[in-house]
């Protein structure tokens, strides 16, 4: 069954500090769409090293949102990209769309 994002890590981290949670979610709302767009740009340019770098950055977001299976795919994809293998692009894009939608609706 496909994993769904959640805020468990953020709740644990905040210790019920609602102000922190609000600020942190706002940062995710800003960063994730920007990083996704950066990913799309470098993939379109077939820049494998820049693609690996942004996947590296995005995989932290997957961890924050408790998407451990998707994180594993991102780890593999990052390594593949360093070897100019873009084949996991479609699967990774589905993950990005999923987290973007989730964050947008928070």
């Amino acid at each position, binding site marked *: 069954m496909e994993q769904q994002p959640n805020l468990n*890590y953020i709740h*644990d*981290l*905040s*210790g019920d*500090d609602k102000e*922190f949670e609000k*600020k*942190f979610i706002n*940062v*995710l709302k*800003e*960063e994730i769409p920007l990083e996704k767009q950066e990913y799309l740009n470098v993939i379109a340019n077939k820049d494998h090293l820049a693609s690996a*770098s942004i996947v*590296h*950055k995005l*995989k*932290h*977001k997957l*961890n*924050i949102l408790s998407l451990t299976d998707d994180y594993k795919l991102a780890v593999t994809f990052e390594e593949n990209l360093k070897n100019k293998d873009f084949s996991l692009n479609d699967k990774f894009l589905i993950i990005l769309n999923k987290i973007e939608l989730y964050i947008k609706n928070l």
Partner: protein
Amino acid sequence: MNCIIVDDEAAARMIVEQLCSKVPELDVIDSFSNAMDAIKFLNQNTVDVVFLDIHMPGFSGIDFVQTLKNPPRIVLTTSDTNFAIEAYEYEPIVDYLVKPITQERFEKSIVKIKSALSKKTVTDQVSTKTASNAEEDIYINIDRRLIKLKLDDILIIEAKGDYIDVKTEKKTYRVHNTLKSIKDKLPENIFLQIHRSFIINFTKIIDIEDNSVLIEKSVIPISRSNRPELMRRLNLL
């Protein structure tokens, strides 16, 4: 204890700030989104600990550690695990936190930092004494007088035709000599020629831009041919 946070991701910086806020004796004095700003800050301020993202655009955490003159204790933060073995080869690195960092793991890191800081205090006392004993001087000949200068007081030496200007914090001495001649007498671990007209004391560098270094209030050009050696030597510090 005070610390700074270096990470190009705002979310990652916020996480470490939040973790730090739960440790009463730890003050976050600043956060940086890029390595160069953090290096400039560290060259002018003293901090106990740096929480440092190992993977930043154009500058790895290892590069960062090697660039600092007197690195504080470093805790690497990363989404990777495959840098861990290499990381521990560098003495200032006391811990390695894999993201997402939990409070429990962070508190273990604080224990390691405290232990490392207590060892550092003892080491510093020994180092200071050794450095003091090894202090060296150079004599320059001005109007048939030999004037003693402490090497550590010399900031810049500039070629001026048949003369050289030896600039210290207090005074500039004009000496009838060549840059090559004085270069041969200076210790290589402190002085470096970065341009055909300039030798610098690179322990005095405040800031490095693309093609220049800042020492005190002087901006000194770096020639293209000397730049690789400067960068290599900085890495050794």
